[in-house]
């Protein structure tokens, strides 16, 4: 397998401020990769470096094995980009803008274009000045998915879409995934990430702090547990990896490090388990932990 995106030690400074502090990422071809992190973490900056719109201060960024800055035009033949804040030409219609992008990318599939406009419920005859934010985003999405490319780079592409359109978007991504196309998706919408993505990378303050599949990331966090036993549990608070014990009507409630789960269950077993419920951390909780973590 070849890498579609390879970022090695990329830094980017804006004057004295350093927006990226040595980012490393490898993404495989055909992979749907989610790039998440708090506001101002450096997601859009990374994407702009990948697109050759910004030049990295140091390090190398490669797309399909080519240098993101030097070979930008070659690379762009195989990618489509949708920004979160889509600003379009006020006096062109949506249809004109879609054709412009598709033409510039060099592919042309009229049926696909028609289907996508229909699916996204877009009126292509309206001037862009009259489109809402969501409709401008739809224009950019239709233009992207109507182009024949190998990698979609999407920067918060659904921040203005309603739930129905979000659904259409997810279908489009899954369709491309099934066709073996790669997607690099920056997003704040966790359900979207959970449904679509093979792997997740988390960036915080210009550094990638975690990369892995959702399961792998879950392993690094805690399950919530509720147990009821025949006899009162002793020594639970002495065990490593158990936190936040509270008594509740249904039994004892606490959090367990995923890696300590076995030991803890064994310990509880001595007291005669009547009931045991464990809830995996929700994605939100998982990310919240990463977003809030102090320091490096």
């Amino acid at each position: 397998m070849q890498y579609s995106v390879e970022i090695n030690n990329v830094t980017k400074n804006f004057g004295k401020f350093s927006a990226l502090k040595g980012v490393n990422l490898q993404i495989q071809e055909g992979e749907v990769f989610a790039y998440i992190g708090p506001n101002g973490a450096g997601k859009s900056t990374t994407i702009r470096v990948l697109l050759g719109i910004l030049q990295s201060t140091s390090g190398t960024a490669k797309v399909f094995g080519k240098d993101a800055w030097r070979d930008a035009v070659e690379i762009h033949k195989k990618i489509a980009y949708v920004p979160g804040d889509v600003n379009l030409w006020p006096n062109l219609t949506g249809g004109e803008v879609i054709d412009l992008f598709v033409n510039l990318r060099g592919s042309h599939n009229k049926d696909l274009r028609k289907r996508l406009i229909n699916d996204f419920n877009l009126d292509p005859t309206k001037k862009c000045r009259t489109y809402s934010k969501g409709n401008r985003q739809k224009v950019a999405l239709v233009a992207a998915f109507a182009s024949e490319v190998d990698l979609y780079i999407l920067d918060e592409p659904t921040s203005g879409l309603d739930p129905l359109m979000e659904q259409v978007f997810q279908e489009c991504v899954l369709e491309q995934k099934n066709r073996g196309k790669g997607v690099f998706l920056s997003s704040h919408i966790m359900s979207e990430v959970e449904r679509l993505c093979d792997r997740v990378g988390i960036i915080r303050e210009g550094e990638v702090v975690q990369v892995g599949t959702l399961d792998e990331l879950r392993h690094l966090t805690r399950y919530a547990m509720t147990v009821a036993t025949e006899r009162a549990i002793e020594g639970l608070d002495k065990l490593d990896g158990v936190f936040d014990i509270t008594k509740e009507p249904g039994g004892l409630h606490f959090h367990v490090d995923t890696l300590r789960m076995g030991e803890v269950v064994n310990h509880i077993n001595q007291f005669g388990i009547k009931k045991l419920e464990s809830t995996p951390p929700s994605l939100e909780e998982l990310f919240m932990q990463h977003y809030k973590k102090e320091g490096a």
Partner: protein
Amino acid sequence: MDKYKREDWRNSNFSNTFLLTKFMLRRERFIALAWIIIFNVVVVGLVPGMMLAIDVDARVELASMMELPAMIAMIGPAFATIYEGFGALYTNLIFLFSVLTIGIMNIFLITRHTRADEEQGRYEVVRSLPVGRLANLSAAFLTAIVVNGAMSLIMGLLMFAAGDYSMGFAPSMLWGLIHGAVGLAFAALTALFCQLSSNSRGAVSYSFIALILFYFIRAAGDMNPDMAVLSLLTPLGLAVHAAPYASNLWWPLAVLLGASAAVAAIAYRLSATRDIDQGIIPARPGRAEASALLSTATGLSFRLTRTALILTLIGVFALGASYATILGNVDEFVATNDFYRNLLLTPAGIDFEAAEGMTTEELVTVLNAVVNAAGFNLTQLFASMVNNIMVLLTLAAPLLFVLRAKSEERAGRTELILATPTCRFKYLAGFAAISFAASLLMQIVLAVGLHSIAQGVIPNPGDLTLAFLFESAIVYVPAMWTMSAIAILLIGVAPKATGIIWAYYAYTFLVVFIGRLAIFPEWLVYTTPMGFVPQLPMDEVNPVALVLLTAVAAALTAAGFFFYNKRDINAVTHV
């Protein structure tokens, strides 16, 4: 019972109008203040200066010039020869353009607070509050009344303070109030168009079309005594006929206010019947698919600047043609007017002293003899001056075309194009090419425009051939290219400082324009590209200098492209 109904009606329609008005005035305060200050500085500020600069002889000359049909068409009926004092002359000279400017202010003011707000979704928020159906429109009108009222009173008082004996208190107030009334007339009209059109751009366009139509209908009425009433059917015509400091008529003020109220009432009616975001005239659907033009980045650049380019070319043609209308009696102007004499003869190095007691005819004969003895003819000198001034005016257009590359970048649209397989070179080249081509086209059109009218008005058409006009206009092109090239260099090197080109443009304007009157040291013009342009017929065409200028433009352009290729593309939303 009746009383409650009335109250209900008032509540559902006008509730919270005053609160909205206060809010609008808050949003408007800086813009309104800027308008009031700048407008008064220009319009009233000219009064003392002009009173000093234009002595009694010059006043008589100016006043008689305003009796030319072309001038009546441009600025309204002539009356400055009838009335004494500076006031009448000044009104005759600038009143029409002054009130017209206030009209433009109101077009934007009303659109800003009605259609534009609606388009941006702000109006929806307002409507969700407990405000009446017509409260927003009423608040917009009240805001217009406050702003125009302030403008009227301040201007009236300032005119009274700045004027001479002929500019008394009551006429000064009439001067101010007519401004306000014309402002309100356009406010009402714009409010009407805001109901008709479904977007703010349409409303502004309709309003401007109305303004231009009014201007021409008024011109037709003023020029033909049989159709004089036409002029009075337009707000602009009513305004000039009030003629403060001259006939001092007050009834046009009443007519203007009454008509404004009537139009406002229609706007109210339409506003009550239409839905939010809709217009009475349905929006025309645009193209569902792009034409072949939009398949390349260069095509996009052209598409984005096309309308502006066409309008610029029409404007250049019209300006050239209207300058040419004076060519018929240019020798008279030059013979009798010091200002023109300086403007035309100083650059040619011709000394012409008017001897005492000569009639105009004798002066003209002597003048032509002197000019011909120097190897020129007056029409050529005049064309040369027009070229010079026109280039200074129109140079802004090619600069704007190339700076579009930068405004696109700030708006975040450049990165959308550069994320496709379009190289930066090609992207910037589109805008650069349009800018360069515009300079060339503008000069060609200018020559054609001058020529078209000149042939009809000059006594000896052979004096001013198309070949001469082409040559004398096109020698400017390398200098214009150099200005665009400086802009390109700035876009490449210092995209945040492209404003420098406007400062340099202003400097060029000053040095070259005032330089004609030989006030500044001569070497100063060589700090601008214009200094190297031969002024035909006085100078010979200097191919070496022109080629060098073109080479400089090419080098600056190349440097601009080089740096553009190496720098980050920055949208304003990301900084």
